[in-house]
């Protein structure tokens, strides 16, 4: 009887080990990596620090648990996020060209990075009228380009349109994480704080 049970257990283990399902999930890690690369390109920064956003944390911890899972193994398709279509190249270049104009406003705390991957004009009270118009125009153009960029990434990588908020969130992680000290960033709870 005991032998039978042992055989059945071993057999079951083989069956379980043989069950491999290939699932394609939302490629959070790959998009995060692409976002880091784009932000580096736009701002001319180096990849020294890792994004700290909750979305990223959760996705990374989720990846870790996958390795420990017991039972039928799920193979996760390696998705290469394309970040170099003509639209993406031009959008990146436009943002890169615009960044020197935006930087003084970041430095002075007039604008900040919100938690959905966009720029927000926070406090323009101390600016002259021309600077107010400039910051409004730059922020508007930047946000228009960012929205186009996120849509292009979804389209180029054949992701579902509903994944736009997730893409924005991942980019928000990168924009915020790669912000300079004393720039304003919006945390995931909606509060604004100075980057340390």
């Amino acid at each position, binding site marked *: 009887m005991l032998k039978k049970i042992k055989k059945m257990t071993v057999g079951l283990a083989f069956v379980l080990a043989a069950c491999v399902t290939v699932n394609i999930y939302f490629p959070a890690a790959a998009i995060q990596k692409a976002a880091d690369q784009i932000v580096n390109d736009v701002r001319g920064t180096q990849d020294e620090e890792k994004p700290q956003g909750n979305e990223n944390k959760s996705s990374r911890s989720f990846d870790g648990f996958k390795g420990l899972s017991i039972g039928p193994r799920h193979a996760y398709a390696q998705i290469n996020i394309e970040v170099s279509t003509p639209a993406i*190249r*031009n959008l990146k270049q436009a943002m890169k060209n615009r960044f020197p104009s935006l930087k003084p406003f970041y430095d002075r705390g007039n604008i900040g990075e919100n938690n959905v991957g966009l720029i927000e004009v926070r406090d323009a009270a101390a600016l002259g009228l021309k600077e107010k118009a400039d910051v409004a125009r730059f922020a508007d153009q930047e946000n228009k380009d960012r929205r186009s960029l996120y849509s292009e990434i979804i389209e180029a990588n054949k992701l579902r349109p509903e994944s736009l908020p997730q893409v924005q969130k991942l980019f928000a992680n990168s924009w915020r994480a790669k912000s300079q000290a004393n720039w304003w960033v919006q945390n995931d709870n909606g509060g604004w704080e100075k980057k340390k």
Partner: protein
Amino acid sequence: MKNKKAIFAGVALACMCVMATGLFILIREPFCIRKAGAIVEQFFGYRINADRITLSPALKAEITGLSIAGPKGGGAVFMSSQANIESSFAGALRGEVEKIILREPKIQIKLGKRKGSSSDLSFIKKLPAVDLVEVRKGELRLFLDSSPYEMSIKDISLDVRRFSPTKGGRIAFQGTVNVAGGKNSYPTVQGFFRGDFNLTRLFPTPIGLGVLEATVGSGVFSAGVVKKGALVVRAKLEDERILITEAALSADSLDVGKGEKRSGLKNVTVRTDFTYETKSRRVYANHLKGEIPGVGVFEGSGKGVLRHDYPWQAAIEAKDINFAGLFAALGPFVAERQGEEWSVRGQGALKTELEGTMAGRVPGARGRASLQLKKGEFASKDGTKAGQGIDGEIVVQFRFPFSENGTKDINAFLSLSPGECLWGKYYSDLRKVKAKASSMVDLRITGKDRRVDFNGTANLFDTGDYLYRGSIDRDGWRLFVDLKDISNKKVFLVFLSEYLGQVDPLLKGAEVGGRLDAEINSEVRPDGLKLTGSVSARDAFFWVPEKSLFIDQVNISLPLNLSSRLTDHGVLREEKTETGAMGIKTFQGGPIELKDMEIPLRVSENLLWIPNAIDIPFFGGYIKILSYKVADLLSPTRRFYVTAGLQNVDLGAFMRELTGLHFPATMDARFPMIVYQDGKWITEGKTSVKIFGGEVELSNFYAQEIFAASRKVGGDIAFRDINLGSITQTIKIGRITGVVEGAVRGLEIEYGQPSRFVLDIDSVRKPGVKQNVSVDAIENIAILGTGSGGVGMVLKSGLNRFFKEYPYSRIGIRCTLENDTFHIRGKILEGKQEYLVRRGLLRGIDIINRDPDNTISFLDMQERIGRVFEDRKKNEDPLVGVN
């Protein structure tokens, strides 16, 4: 006889004493008091009660529990716990009272609705002289018949000394005031008053000096709250005039407004003098001065006559108004939506002169007010809309009858030297503009509905003549605008040049010229907007040097007939058709030049179209616009429909200008329907172009944001019977002969670069058409396919150098571009080989794809194409072999 008289006098005196004694005794009896009260009530209507009356032979009387009520219990009620009356014997004989002392008297008065009663004060002269009247702890309560308000004056102390109707006397009084409404009713006031008057005569007119002080600890009114308010009046009563030598009104805190909007004024003061001449009934105040800290100081004067038509005149001047403070004070009274509040700052001066009548045939006011503004600023709450450095002047003349139905006339002149202006992303520094903006407007307000009619002229920085008129009533508004001889150049320089340069650096240096005239009637009613009139432009031009765009001698006559009220949008109404025209002498946009365009236009409700086909000369041929229609002009989803064609266009000249390449062909094309909607141009049907001996057919063509850098163009292209010889004569990649067909499917071009497509090219055998490929073409194809041009060296060495061309039997190529990755695959599969080009039967050349998974990035492909069209380095070593 003498004795008899003496006895009679003694008896009479004794009887009188007995009677007096009897009266003294009887009157103290409650029965008698009640009986006497009943008699008085019967004859006079007043009910008088007293608990006890004590009469002293020394001419002293003491009454306790005295109460006097008005007829039928209404009107006034007087009660006093104790009243003492004293007089000396001699004074009594003179009808004088020495002392009247009232303790805790209480008076209640209920005021009814009766109006117009005149006061007869002649009773004053009948009052007895009193040496001293004292009232202690008195109380007066006033009720209003028609409202819940009640005013009570408590702790009243009143001292009247040496009172005589003819010689006056001194009167001093004080008390605390409390005004209270019902539940949640206003006003509620707590205060204190004090007065001291020294009169030398009381009747017929009082004469003397006095002071009245009233303080309000707190007062809550429906309009606001007053804290620590004070009124001090110093009066001088003369024989024929009453002088208020000083009336000072002040409030530590005056908080007016509605809801959370409060003015929060502090330390408000107003001082004035005042004179009333009793004979002439003239009133005047020569020195009125008020100060509202944070707002400014105002001074004024006024005069009037209190009879006949009650004419009056007043003047107020404020030399240094702080508009920030003024706007904050007035803010609670300005209707603004939550989040749309505005702030105003600046210094200014106000001068008003008013006059009018309070009665007569047409009582009302008329006057003139001028307001000067310096360094004015305004800003929305979020700061996205603002202006600063604004200097200006408003002069208003008006005539306001007081009657509700009277017509109110206002004439206003406004002159502004604007400074900087911010409106969202729009910014303009108008300080650079030397001219001013001004407007003169006449307004008339009539009827109970307060219909406003207005007409005026305006000068906007000397850009032309502007006239306007219109009306506003409860059903909507109408506005007619007449623009005459407007300088496009000045309008562009003042309002647009700077802004466009900020938005797009390529628009810096743009110039606009010509003149504009327009007559526009607009009418807004609850069911929508209607716009009619006409716009005409003369000799207009538009030049953008950075974009090499030049449009010259534009003449437009465009009728307007737009309405958002229509439900049958897009339906042509022949009976309402109006005619216009547009002429452009020169259009030059980069290499494209159009000349002498004359385009007739027709306009009906919300529709604009051209009535017949027009030919626009274009590179030796014509662009034929067969039909053009714009529907739903007022709607954001307006649609354009165009049917057009090209006829005998010299493609060679056109492409040479456009690309530098020469295509020796004429082009004929027909675009059956091009539709524009929601920012996207879409072709319906198929468009065919005859070129290179064959036909190219475009379908599903679309274009988005065609004038933006992010423009997107796409569609499908099919081509048939294309002569490769003709193409390779034009595109110098080496000579190839033969005929091909194929298609470009899913073509998408973004930012001027292809982002995806699938291209199929297949050769087609045609009798009498050779299929050869030159060495140069092979070399170039190898560069495109492999990145190396070394094969050319192989073909140009040894025996191969004697052959300039090689025959081929078939070409089959598929190129795909997706996600910036470019693939080239051969479509000819024989054995295990994948051929792009298959050689001829006996001789020729094969091009084989040895690495089917080979992909290159689009940037690499761009680099390879660049190498094809540039001189390659000589003596380059071959890197690939040739079959």
